[in-house]
Protein backbone atom coordinates (compact mmCIF):
# COMPACT_ATOMS: atom_id res chain seq x y z
CA UNK A 1 0.00 0.00 0.00
CA UNK A 2 1.01 3.57 -0.69
CA UNK A 3 2.97 4.63 2.40
CA UNK A 4 1.99 8.30 2.31
CA UNK A 5 -1.71 7.44 2.14
CA UNK A 6 -1.23 4.98 4.99
CA UNK A 7 0.38 7.63 7.19
CA UNK A 8 -2.16 10.25 6.20
CA UNK A 9 -5.09 7.97 7.07
CA UNK A 10 -3.59 7.02 10.41
CA UNK A 11 -2.79 10.60 11.37
CA UNK A 12 -6.12 12.09 10.23
CA UNK A 13 -8.60 9.57 11.59
CA UNK A 14 -8.81 7.98 15.01
CA UNK A 15 -8.77 4.22 15.46
CA UNK A 16 -7.72 3.30 11.91
CA UNK A 17 -6.01 -0.07 11.58
CA UNK A 18 -4.29 -1.08 8.33
CA UNK A 19 -3.44 -4.69 7.46
CA UNK A 20 -1.91 -5.96 4.20
CA UNK A 21 -3.71 -9.21 3.29
CA UNK A 22 -1.99 -10.01 -0.01
CA UNK A 23 0.37 -8.00 -2.16
CA UNK A 24 -2.50 -6.24 -3.89
CA UNK A 25 -5.15 -6.37 -1.18
CA UNK A 26 -5.16 -4.11 1.87
CA UNK A 27 -7.68 -4.09 4.68
CA UNK A 28 -8.49 -0.83 6.46
CA UNK A 29 -10.49 -1.27 9.63
CA UNK A 30 -12.30 1.80 10.93
CA UNK A 31 -14.97 2.60 13.53
CA UNK A 32 -18.42 2.81 11.94
CA UNK A 33 -18.78 6.57 12.47
CA UNK A 34 -15.73 7.33 10.29
CA UNK A 35 -16.84 5.19 7.33
CA UNK A 36 -18.23 8.08 5.21
CA UNK A 37 -15.23 10.35 5.71
CA UNK A 38 -12.68 7.60 5.09
CA UNK A 39 -14.62 6.43 2.00
CA UNK A 40 -14.58 9.97 0.67
CA UNK A 41 -10.87 10.31 1.38
CA UNK A 42 -10.09 7.01 -0.38
CA UNK A 43 -12.19 8.03 -3.36
CA UNK A 44 -10.31 11.31 -3.63
CA UNK A 45 -6.99 9.49 -3.50
CA UNK A 46 -7.80 7.40 -6.59
CA UNK A 47 -9.92 4.46 -5.43
CA UNK A 48 -12.81 5.71 -7.51
CA UNK A 49 -14.78 2.51 -7.83
CA UNK A 50 -16.87 0.48 -5.40
CA UNK A 51 -16.60 -3.11 -6.60
CA UNK A 52 -18.69 -4.78 -3.97
CA UNK A 53 -20.37 -4.06 -0.69
CA UNK A 54 -20.65 -7.13 1.49
CA UNK A 55 -21.60 -8.16 4.98
CA UNK A 56 -20.25 -10.93 7.19
CA UNK A 57 -22.15 -12.12 10.24
CA UNK A 58 -19.67 -12.78 13.07
CA UNK A 59 -22.27 -14.21 15.39
CA UNK A 60 -19.69 -15.27 18.01
CA UNK A 61 -18.67 -11.64 18.55
CA UNK A 62 -22.24 -10.38 18.16
CA UNK A 63 -21.15 -8.15 15.28
CA UNK A 64 -21.81 -7.58 11.61
CA UNK A 65 -18.80 -6.70 9.53
CA UNK A 66 -19.61 -4.44 6.59
CA UNK A 67 -16.96 -4.66 3.86
CA UNK A 68 -16.55 -2.06 1.11
CA UNK A 69 -14.28 -3.40 -1.62
CA UNK A 70 -12.74 -0.44 -3.42
CA UNK A 71 -10.50 -0.29 -6.43
CA UNK A 72 -9.85 2.06 -9.31
CA UNK A 73 -10.64 2.11 -12.97
CA UNK A 74 -7.57 2.47 -15.15
CA UNK A 75 -5.54 5.52 -14.30
CA UNK A 76 -4.14 5.84 -17.83
CA UNK A 77 -6.35 5.34 -20.83
CA UNK A 78 -3.98 3.05 -22.70
CA UNK A 79 -1.49 1.73 -20.21
CA UNK A 80 -2.07 -0.80 -17.48
CA UNK A 81 -0.27 0.02 -14.26
CA UNK A 82 0.35 -2.29 -11.28
CA UNK A 83 -1.74 0.17 -9.27
CA UNK A 84 -4.86 -0.91 -11.15
CA UNK A 85 -4.69 -4.29 -9.39
CA UNK A 86 -4.80 -2.79 -5.93
CA UNK A 87 -7.93 -3.32 -3.82
CA UNK A 88 -8.84 -1.90 -0.45
CA UNK A 89 -11.26 -3.67 1.88
CA UNK A 90 -12.70 -0.95 4.07
CA UNK A 91 -14.18 -2.79 7.02
CA UNK A 92 -16.23 -1.77 9.98
CA UNK A 93 -17.95 -3.74 12.72
CA UNK A 94 -21.39 -2.83 13.98
CA UNK A 95 -23.45 -4.52 16.71
CA UNK A 96 -25.94 -7.16 15.52
CA UNK A 97 -28.78 -5.69 17.58
CA UNK A 98 -30.38 -2.67 15.89
CA UNK A 99 -27.63 -2.75 13.27
CA UNK A 100 -27.48 0.48 11.36
CA UNK A 101 -24.97 2.43 9.33
CA UNK A 102 -24.93 5.59 7.23
CA UNK A 103 -25.69 5.01 3.57
CA UNK A 104 -22.81 5.52 1.13
CA UNK A 105 -24.96 6.37 -1.90
CA UNK A 106 -23.88 10.00 -1.91
CA UNK A 107 -20.26 8.86 -2.33
CA UNK A 108 -20.69 5.80 -4.56
CA UNK A 109 -23.97 5.81 -6.45
CA UNK A 110 -23.76 2.11 -7.28
CA UNK A 111 -23.94 1.20 -3.57
CA UNK A 112 -27.73 1.50 -3.78
CA UNK A 113 -28.71 -2.09 -4.66
CA UNK A 114 -25.98 -3.56 -2.45
CA UNK A 115 -27.26 -1.71 0.59
CA UNK A 116 -30.78 -2.77 -0.26
CA UNK A 117 -29.64 -6.38 -0.46
CA UNK A 118 -27.80 -6.26 2.87
CA UNK A 119 -30.80 -4.63 4.49
CA UNK A 120 -33.03 -7.40 3.24
CA UNK A 121 -30.79 -10.40 3.85
CA UNK A 122 -29.05 -9.33 7.06
CA UNK A 123 -31.38 -6.72 8.49
CA UNK A 124 -28.85 -3.88 8.57
CA UNK A 125 -30.50 -0.48 8.32
CA UNK A 126 -28.81 2.12 6.12
CA UNK A 127 -29.65 5.67 7.19
CA UNK A 128 -30.41 7.97 4.29
CA UNK A 129 -31.15 5.22 1.78
CA UNK A 130 -34.07 6.34 -0.41
CA UNK A 131 -35.75 2.94 -0.83
CA UNK A 132 -35.01 0.11 1.54
CA UNK A 133 -37.73 -1.99 -0.08
CA UNK A 134 -37.40 -5.76 -0.64
CA UNK A 135 -35.09 -6.70 -3.50
CA UNK A 136 -35.28 -10.50 -3.83
CA UNK A 137 -37.61 -11.93 -1.23
CA UNK A 138 -41.39 -12.18 -1.43
CA UNK A 139 -42.10 -12.57 2.27
CA UNK A 140 -40.83 -11.27 5.57
CA UNK A 141 -38.83 -13.56 7.81
CA UNK A 142 -38.55 -13.31 11.55
CA UNK A 143 -34.78 -13.65 11.29
CA UNK A 144 -33.32 -12.18 8.08
CA UNK A 145 -32.33 -15.29 6.08
CA UNK A 146 -28.60 -14.67 5.58
CA UNK A 147 -27.90 -14.26 9.30
CA UNK A 148 -26.03 -17.14 10.86
CA UNK A 149 -28.84 -17.85 13.33
CA UNK A 150 -31.31 -18.45 10.50
CA UNK A 151 -31.57 -22.24 10.38
CA UNK A 152 -31.90 -23.13 6.69
CA UNK A 153 -32.42 -26.86 7.38
CA UNK A 154 -35.21 -26.19 9.86
CA UNK A 155 -36.79 -23.68 7.48
CA UNK A 156 -36.84 -26.24 4.65
CA UNK A 157 -38.33 -28.84 7.00
CA UNK A 158 -41.03 -26.50 8.27
CA UNK A 159 -41.92 -25.13 4.86
CA UNK A 160 -41.79 -28.13 2.57
CA UNK A 161 -42.61 -31.00 4.94
CA UNK A 162 -45.81 -29.20 5.79
CA UNK A 163 -47.08 -29.56 2.22
CA UNK A 164 -49.48 -32.55 2.19
CA UNK A 165 -49.05 -35.33 -0.37
CA UNK A 166 -51.71 -35.78 -3.05
CA UNK A 167 -54.23 -38.40 -1.84
CA UNK A 168 -55.39 -41.17 -4.17
Amino acid sequence: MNETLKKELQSTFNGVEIVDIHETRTAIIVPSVSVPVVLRKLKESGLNRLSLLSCVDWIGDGKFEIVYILTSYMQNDDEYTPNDEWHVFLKTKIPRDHASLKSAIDIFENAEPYEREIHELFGVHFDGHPRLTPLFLTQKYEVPPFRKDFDTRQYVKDTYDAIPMVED
Partner: protein
Amino acid sequence: MTQVKETAKNEVQRELEMYFGPQHLGMVGNFSITLTVQGDRIVKAAANPGYLHRGFEKLMEYRTWIQNFPLVCRVNVVEPDHMEMIYSMAVEKLAGIEVPERGHYVRSIYLELARVGSHLFGLWAYANMLGFDTVAQWAMYHRDLILDLFEALTGGRVYHIYIWPGGVRRDFPKGFKDKIVSTLHQIGGCVPDYDDTFFKNRLFYDRAHGIGKLTAEKAQRLGATGQTLRATGMKYDIRKVEPYAAYDTVEWEVPTRTDGDAYSRIWVVRDEMIESVHMIFKLLEGMPEGPVFNRPPNPLRWNIPSGEAYVRCESSRGELGCYIVSDGGDKPYRVHFRTPSYPHGLTILEDVLVDASVADVGNTMISLYVVAPEIDR
Protein backbone atom coordinates in the same frame (compact mmCIF):
# COMPACT_ATOMS: atom_id res chain seq x y z
CA MET B 1 -50.35 6.90 -10.20
CA THR B 2 -52.95 8.86 -12.07
CA GLN B 3 -51.37 12.24 -11.97
CA VAL B 4 -52.57 14.31 -14.89
CA LYS B 5 -50.07 16.46 -16.77
CA GLU B 6 -50.58 18.81 -19.66
CA THR B 7 -48.36 18.42 -22.70
CA ALA B 8 -47.23 21.20 -24.99
CA LYS B 9 -50.07 20.41 -27.36
CA ASN B 10 -52.52 20.74 -24.48
CA GLU B 11 -53.39 17.07 -24.73
CA VAL B 12 -53.96 15.41 -21.41
CA GLN B 13 -51.51 12.56 -20.82
CA ARG B 14 -51.82 10.40 -17.77
CA GLU B 15 -48.91 8.83 -15.98
CA LEU B 16 -49.44 5.10 -15.83
CA GLU B 17 -47.63 2.34 -14.02
CA MET B 18 -46.90 -0.63 -16.22
CA TYR B 19 -45.37 -4.02 -15.49
CA PHE B 20 -42.86 -5.15 -18.08
CA GLY B 21 -42.11 -8.84 -17.51
CA PRO B 22 -41.59 -11.48 -16.28
CA GLN B 23 -44.23 -12.75 -18.73
CA HIS B 24 -43.61 -10.46 -21.66
CA LEU B 25 -42.50 -11.05 -25.22
CA GLY B 26 -39.77 -8.43 -24.99
CA MET B 27 -38.32 -9.83 -21.79
CA VAL B 28 -35.62 -12.45 -21.77
CA GLY B 29 -35.20 -14.28 -18.51
CA ASN B 30 -36.79 -14.16 -15.09
CA PHE B 31 -36.85 -10.44 -14.55
CA SER B 32 -39.33 -7.63 -14.54
CA ILE B 33 -39.30 -3.87 -14.65
CA THR B 34 -41.97 -1.57 -13.30
CA LEU B 35 -42.25 1.35 -15.68
CA THR B 36 -43.95 4.65 -15.06
CA VAL B 37 -44.94 5.85 -18.50
CA GLN B 38 -46.47 8.95 -19.98
CA GLY B 39 -47.71 7.98 -23.42
CA ASP B 40 -44.81 6.05 -24.90
CA ARG B 41 -42.10 7.79 -22.85
CA ILE B 42 -40.70 6.22 -19.72
CA VAL B 43 -40.65 8.58 -16.76
CA LYS B 44 -39.25 6.16 -14.21
CA ALA B 45 -38.08 2.56 -14.22
CA ALA B 46 -37.68 0.24 -11.24
CA ALA B 47 -36.05 -3.14 -11.72
CA ASN B 48 -37.56 -6.12 -9.89
CA PRO B 49 -35.13 -9.00 -9.59
CA GLY B 50 -35.66 -12.01 -7.36
CA TYR B 51 -37.63 -14.40 -9.55
CA LEU B 52 -34.69 -16.80 -9.48
CA HIS B 53 -33.28 -16.09 -6.04
CA ARG B 54 -32.09 -19.40 -4.69
CA GLY B 55 -29.97 -18.18 -1.82
CA PHE B 56 -26.89 -19.95 -3.17
CA GLU B 57 -24.49 -17.93 -1.06
CA LYS B 58 -26.27 -19.04 2.09
CA LEU B 59 -26.51 -22.67 0.94
CA MET B 60 -22.78 -22.67 0.29
CA GLU B 61 -22.16 -22.10 3.99
CA TYR B 62 -23.64 -25.56 4.63
CA ARG B 63 -21.53 -27.46 2.09
CA THR B 64 -17.85 -28.37 1.96
CA TRP B 65 -15.45 -26.51 -0.34
CA ILE B 66 -15.80 -29.08 -3.12
CA GLN B 67 -19.50 -29.83 -2.65
CA ASN B 68 -20.17 -26.21 -3.60
CA PHE B 69 -19.25 -26.64 -7.25
CA PRO B 70 -22.69 -27.75 -8.49
CA LEU B 71 -24.18 -24.65 -6.84
CA VAL B 72 -21.54 -22.25 -8.10
CA CYS B 73 -21.94 -23.08 -11.77
CA ARG B 74 -25.68 -22.55 -11.58
CA VAL B 75 -25.32 -18.93 -10.52
CA ASN B 76 -25.03 -17.92 -14.15
CA VAL B 77 -26.93 -20.35 -16.33
CA VAL B 78 -25.52 -19.02 -19.58
CA GLU B 79 -21.85 -19.27 -18.73
CA PRO B 80 -21.14 -21.54 -15.80
CA ASP B 81 -17.46 -21.86 -16.70
CA HIS B 82 -16.41 -18.47 -15.41
CA MET B 83 -18.27 -19.19 -12.18
CA GLU B 84 -16.23 -22.38 -11.71
CA MET B 85 -13.11 -20.40 -12.45
CA ILE B 86 -13.79 -17.62 -9.98
CA TYR B 87 -14.67 -20.00 -7.17
CA SER B 88 -11.58 -22.14 -7.86
CA MET B 89 -9.42 -19.02 -7.91
CA ALA B 90 -10.84 -17.94 -4.56
CA VAL B 91 -10.25 -21.36 -2.97
CA GLU B 92 -6.73 -21.50 -4.41
CA LYS B 93 -5.98 -18.06 -3.00
CA LEU B 94 -7.16 -19.02 0.48
CA ALA B 95 -5.55 -22.47 0.51
CA GLY B 96 -2.36 -21.38 -1.26
CA ILE B 97 -2.57 -23.95 -4.07
CA GLU B 98 -0.50 -23.49 -7.22
CA VAL B 99 -1.73 -24.44 -10.69
CA PRO B 100 0.69 -26.14 -13.14
CA GLU B 101 1.63 -24.11 -16.21
CA ARG B 102 -0.22 -26.32 -18.67
CA GLY B 103 -3.26 -26.12 -16.39
CA HIS B 104 -3.27 -22.34 -16.88
CA TYR B 105 -3.25 -22.74 -20.66
CA VAL B 106 -6.02 -25.32 -20.64
CA ARG B 107 -8.09 -23.03 -18.40
CA SER B 108 -7.61 -20.05 -20.70
CA ILE B 109 -8.57 -22.00 -23.82
CA TYR B 110 -11.59 -23.46 -22.05
CA LEU B 111 -12.70 -20.05 -20.78
CA GLU B 112 -12.29 -18.42 -24.18
CA LEU B 113 -14.41 -21.18 -25.74
CA ALA B 114 -16.98 -20.46 -23.04
CA ARG B 115 -16.83 -16.76 -23.89
CA VAL B 116 -17.50 -17.42 -27.57
CA GLY B 117 -20.36 -19.77 -26.64
CA SER B 118 -21.85 -17.26 -24.26
CA HIS B 119 -21.57 -14.41 -26.77
CA LEU B 120 -23.28 -16.54 -29.40
CA PHE B 121 -26.07 -17.19 -26.91
CA GLY B 122 -26.29 -13.45 -26.26
CA LEU B 123 -26.38 -12.85 -30.00
CA TRP B 124 -29.23 -15.32 -30.28
CA ALA B 125 -31.19 -13.47 -27.60
CA TYR B 126 -30.57 -10.08 -29.16
CA ALA B 127 -31.20 -11.06 -32.78
CA ASN B 128 -34.30 -12.99 -31.80
CA MET B 129 -35.65 -10.05 -29.83
CA LEU B 130 -35.23 -7.67 -32.75
CA GLY B 131 -36.74 -10.11 -35.22
CA PHE B 132 -33.58 -11.23 -37.02
CA ASP B 133 -34.59 -14.86 -36.74
CA THR B 134 -32.12 -16.22 -39.28
CA VAL B 135 -29.14 -14.78 -37.43
CA ALA B 136 -30.58 -16.07 -34.17
CA GLN B 137 -30.78 -19.61 -35.53
CA TRP B 138 -27.22 -19.45 -36.85
CA ALA B 139 -25.93 -18.24 -33.51
CA MET B 140 -27.75 -21.01 -31.65
CA TYR B 141 -26.36 -23.61 -34.06
CA HIS B 142 -22.82 -22.32 -33.69
CA ARG B 143 -23.16 -22.28 -29.92
CA ASP B 144 -24.20 -25.90 -30.14
CA LEU B 145 -20.95 -26.71 -31.92
CA ILE B 146 -19.08 -25.23 -28.95
CA LEU B 147 -21.23 -27.30 -26.59
CA ASP B 148 -20.19 -30.39 -28.60
CA LEU B 149 -16.59 -29.50 -27.83
CA PHE B 150 -17.42 -29.20 -24.13
CA GLU B 151 -19.19 -32.55 -24.23
CA ALA B 152 -16.12 -34.19 -25.77
CA LEU B 153 -13.88 -32.60 -23.15
CA THR B 154 -15.92 -32.86 -19.95
CA GLY B 155 -18.91 -35.13 -20.58
CA GLY B 156 -21.39 -32.34 -19.89
CA ARG B 157 -22.87 -29.90 -22.36
CA VAL B 158 -23.88 -26.95 -20.21
CA TYR B 159 -22.58 -27.54 -16.69
CA HIS B 160 -19.08 -28.98 -16.74
CA ILE B 161 -17.34 -28.58 -13.36
CA TYR B 162 -14.11 -28.95 -15.31
CA ILE B 163 -12.05 -26.40 -13.42
CA TRP B 164 -11.09 -27.47 -9.92
CA PRO B 165 -8.89 -25.88 -7.29
CA GLY B 166 -5.41 -26.86 -8.47
CA GLY B 167 -6.03 -26.90 -12.22
CA VAL B 168 -8.47 -28.78 -14.43
CA ARG B 169 -9.91 -32.25 -13.92
CA ARG B 170 -8.23 -33.87 -16.92
CA ASP B 171 -6.08 -33.03 -19.90
CA PHE B 172 -7.34 -32.61 -23.47
CA PRO B 173 -8.27 -35.97 -25.03
CA LYS B 174 -6.45 -37.20 -28.13
CA GLY B 175 -7.22 -35.15 -31.24
CA PHE B 176 -9.08 -32.48 -29.24
CA LYS B 177 -6.83 -29.65 -30.42
CA ASP B 178 -7.70 -30.37 -34.06
CA LYS B 179 -11.36 -30.52 -33.13
CA ILE B 180 -11.18 -27.05 -31.57
CA VAL B 181 -9.38 -25.65 -34.63
CA SER B 182 -11.82 -27.10 -37.16
CA THR B 183 -14.89 -26.01 -35.17
CA LEU B 184 -13.56 -22.47 -34.79
CA HIS B 185 -12.73 -22.31 -38.51
CA GLN B 186 -16.27 -23.40 -39.29
CA ILE B 187 -17.74 -20.67 -37.08
CA GLY B 188 -15.18 -18.05 -38.18
CA GLY B 189 -16.01 -18.73 -41.83
CA CYS B 190 -19.51 -17.41 -41.19
CA VAL B 191 -18.40 -14.01 -39.88
CA PRO B 192 -19.00 -12.32 -43.31
CA ASP B 193 -22.52 -13.78 -43.34
CA TYR B 194 -23.18 -12.46 -39.83
CA ASP B 195 -21.87 -9.05 -40.90
CA ASP B 196 -24.06 -8.87 -44.00
CA THR B 197 -27.26 -9.96 -42.31
CA PHE B 198 -26.82 -8.43 -38.88
CA PHE B 199 -23.91 -6.28 -37.77
CA LYS B 200 -23.67 -4.17 -40.93
CA ASN B 201 -27.33 -4.38 -41.72
CA ARG B 202 -28.95 -0.96 -42.02
CA LEU B 203 -32.09 -2.22 -40.28
CA PHE B 204 -30.11 -3.35 -37.27
CA TYR B 205 -28.13 -0.10 -37.20
CA ASP B 206 -31.30 1.96 -37.19
CA ARG B 207 -32.74 -0.16 -34.43
CA ALA B 208 -29.70 -0.18 -32.14
CA HIS B 209 -27.99 3.14 -32.80
CA GLY B 210 -28.39 5.59 -29.92
CA ILE B 211 -30.24 3.09 -27.70
CA GLY B 212 -29.28 3.01 -24.02
CA LYS B 213 -26.52 5.54 -24.48
CA LEU B 214 -23.94 5.92 -21.72
CA THR B 215 -21.06 8.34 -21.45
CA ALA B 216 -17.72 7.10 -20.12
CA GLU B 217 -18.11 9.25 -17.02
CA LYS B 218 -21.58 7.93 -16.24
CA ALA B 219 -20.62 4.31 -16.95
CA GLN B 220 -17.81 4.59 -14.42
CA ARG B 221 -19.94 6.37 -11.87
CA LEU B 222 -22.56 3.63 -12.01
CA GLY B 223 -20.04 0.78 -11.79
CA ALA B 224 -20.08 -0.55 -15.35
CA THR B 225 -17.56 -3.15 -16.54
CA GLY B 226 -17.23 -5.39 -19.58
CA GLN B 227 -18.68 -4.38 -22.96
CA THR B 228 -20.87 -1.76 -21.35
CA LEU B 229 -17.74 0.09 -20.29
CA ARG B 230 -15.58 -0.82 -23.29
CA ALA B 231 -18.26 0.52 -25.65
CA THR B 232 -17.64 3.95 -24.10
CA GLY B 233 -13.98 3.84 -25.08
CA MET B 234 -12.23 2.51 -21.99
CA LYS B 235 -9.87 -0.44 -22.46
CA TYR B 236 -10.79 -1.94 -19.10
CA ASP B 237 -10.48 -5.72 -19.16
CA ILE B 238 -9.54 -7.80 -16.11
CA ARG B 239 -7.58 -10.18 -18.34
CA LYS B 240 -5.21 -7.26 -18.94
CA VAL B 241 -5.57 -5.29 -15.71
CA GLU B 242 -5.03 -8.22 -13.36
CA PRO B 243 -3.96 -11.16 -15.56
CA TYR B 244 -4.88 -14.67 -14.42
CA ALA B 245 -4.59 -18.11 -16.08
CA ALA B 246 -2.40 -17.77 -19.20
CA TYR B 247 -3.69 -14.45 -20.52
CA ASP B 248 -0.37 -12.67 -20.04
CA THR B 249 1.52 -15.20 -22.19
CA VAL B 250 -0.03 -14.20 -25.52
CA GLU B 251 -0.47 -10.94 -27.40
CA TRP B 252 -4.03 -9.77 -27.87
CA GLU B 253 -6.01 -6.56 -28.19
CA VAL B 254 -8.93 -5.24 -26.16
CA PRO B 255 -11.64 -4.17 -28.62
CA THR B 256 -13.37 -0.89 -27.84
CA ARG B 257 -15.89 1.51 -29.43
CA THR B 258 -16.64 5.08 -28.45
CA ASP B 259 -20.38 5.73 -28.84
CA GLY B 260 -21.55 3.93 -25.69
CA ASP B 261 -24.87 2.83 -27.22
CA ALA B 262 -26.39 -0.59 -27.95
CA TYR B 263 -24.85 -0.66 -31.43
CA SER B 264 -21.35 -0.10 -30.00
CA ARG B 265 -21.86 -2.71 -27.33
CA ILE B 266 -22.83 -5.41 -29.79
CA TRP B 267 -19.86 -4.49 -31.98
CA VAL B 268 -17.53 -4.86 -29.02
CA VAL B 269 -19.06 -8.31 -28.48
CA ARG B 270 -18.51 -9.21 -32.14
CA ASP B 271 -14.88 -8.06 -32.10
CA GLU B 272 -14.31 -9.81 -28.79
CA MET B 273 -15.46 -13.14 -30.21
CA ILE B 274 -13.01 -12.79 -33.10
CA GLU B 275 -10.23 -11.78 -30.70
CA SER B 276 -11.03 -14.81 -28.51
CA VAL B 277 -10.76 -17.17 -31.46
CA HIS B 278 -7.36 -15.73 -32.40
CA MET B 279 -6.31 -15.99 -28.78
CA ILE B 280 -7.29 -19.67 -28.64
CA PHE B 281 -5.13 -20.39 -31.71
CA LYS B 282 -2.16 -18.64 -30.11
CA LEU B 283 -2.67 -20.43 -26.80
CA LEU B 284 -2.92 -23.82 -28.53
CA GLU B 285 0.36 -23.09 -30.27
CA GLY B 286 2.24 -22.03 -27.14
CA MET B 287 0.84 -24.72 -24.85
CA PRO B 288 3.60 -26.44 -22.85
CA GLU B 289 3.67 -30.13 -21.94
CA GLY B 290 3.26 -31.32 -18.38
CA PRO B 291 0.62 -31.98 -15.73
CA VAL B 292 -2.64 -30.01 -15.64
CA PHE B 293 -3.74 -30.70 -12.09
CA ASN B 294 -2.24 -30.33 -8.63
CA ARG B 295 -4.54 -32.61 -6.70
CA PRO B 296 -5.97 -30.84 -3.61
CA PRO B 297 -6.15 -32.79 -0.30
CA ASN B 298 -8.96 -35.24 0.44
CA PRO B 299 -12.08 -33.11 -0.15
CA LEU B 300 -13.91 -34.76 2.73
CA ARG B 301 -11.29 -33.66 5.23
CA TRP B 302 -10.14 -30.38 3.76
CA ASN B 303 -9.91 -27.49 6.20
CA ILE B 304 -8.77 -24.21 4.69
CA PRO B 305 -6.88 -21.76 6.92
CA SER B 306 -8.90 -18.79 8.09
CA GLY B 307 -8.63 -15.66 6.00
CA GLU B 308 -10.36 -13.66 3.33
CA ALA B 309 -9.85 -13.03 -0.37
CA TYR B 310 -11.35 -11.09 -3.21
CA VAL B 311 -10.53 -12.45 -6.65
CA ARG B 312 -11.88 -11.38 -10.02
CA CYS B 313 -11.95 -12.48 -13.63
CA GLU B 314 -13.42 -11.17 -16.87
CA SER B 315 -16.57 -13.09 -17.66
CA SER B 316 -18.30 -12.50 -20.96
CA ARG B 317 -20.42 -9.82 -19.27
CA GLY B 318 -17.83 -7.92 -17.29
CA GLU B 319 -16.04 -8.16 -14.00
CA LEU B 320 -16.95 -11.26 -12.05
CA GLY B 321 -15.65 -11.19 -8.49
CA CYS B 322 -15.81 -13.42 -5.46
CA TYR B 323 -15.38 -12.29 -1.88
CA ILE B 324 -14.79 -15.31 0.29
CA VAL B 325 -14.18 -15.68 4.02
CA SER B 326 -12.92 -18.82 5.74
CA ASP B 327 -12.95 -19.40 9.49
CA GLY B 328 -10.55 -22.32 9.21
CA GLY B 329 -13.26 -24.92 8.73
CA ASP B 330 -14.21 -27.37 6.00
CA LYS B 331 -16.92 -25.06 4.68
CA PRO B 332 -16.81 -21.41 3.57
CA TYR B 333 -17.91 -18.99 6.28
CA ARG B 334 -19.23 -16.45 3.80
CA VAL B 335 -19.24 -16.20 0.01
CA HIS B 336 -20.40 -13.20 -1.95
CA PHE B 337 -20.29 -13.02 -5.74
CA ARG B 338 -19.91 -9.71 -7.49
CA THR B 339 -21.68 -10.45 -10.74
CA PRO B 340 -21.48 -8.05 -13.68
CA SER B 341 -25.24 -8.06 -14.35
CA TYR B 342 -25.87 -6.69 -10.85
CA PRO B 343 -24.85 -3.08 -11.58
CA HIS B 344 -25.85 -3.39 -15.27
CA GLY B 345 -29.34 -4.70 -14.58
CA LEU B 346 -30.17 -2.67 -11.49
CA THR B 347 -28.33 0.65 -11.40
CA ILE B 348 -27.56 1.28 -15.07
CA LEU B 349 -30.76 -0.14 -16.57
CA GLU B 350 -32.91 2.03 -14.31
CA ASP B 351 -30.89 5.05 -15.31
CA VAL B 352 -30.77 4.61 -19.09
CA LEU B 353 -34.44 3.67 -19.40
CA VAL B 354 -35.56 7.12 -18.26
CA ASP B 355 -36.84 9.03 -21.31
CA ALA B 356 -36.62 5.95 -23.52
CA SER B 357 -39.53 4.54 -25.48
CA VAL B 358 -41.48 1.51 -24.22
CA ALA B 359 -40.56 -0.31 -27.43
CA ASP B 360 -36.87 -0.04 -26.55
CA VAL B 361 -36.98 -1.64 -23.10
CA GLY B 362 -36.10 -5.17 -24.21
CA ASN B 363 -33.62 -3.81 -26.70
CA THR B 364 -31.81 -1.81 -24.01
CA MET B 365 -31.86 -4.60 -21.50
CA ILE B 366 -30.40 -7.25 -23.80
CA SER B 367 -27.82 -4.83 -25.16
CA LEU B 368 -26.63 -4.34 -21.55
CA TYR B 369 -26.25 -8.13 -21.50
CA VAL B 370 -28.28 -8.62 -18.35
CA VAL B 371 -28.69 -12.21 -17.18
CA ALA B 372 -31.22 -12.36 -14.36
CA PRO B 373 -30.00 -15.49 -12.46
CA GLU B 374 -26.68 -13.74 -12.00
CA ILE B 375 -28.37 -10.85 -10.20
CA ASP B 376 -30.52 -13.05 -7.97
CA ARG B 377 -27.98 -15.73 -7.07
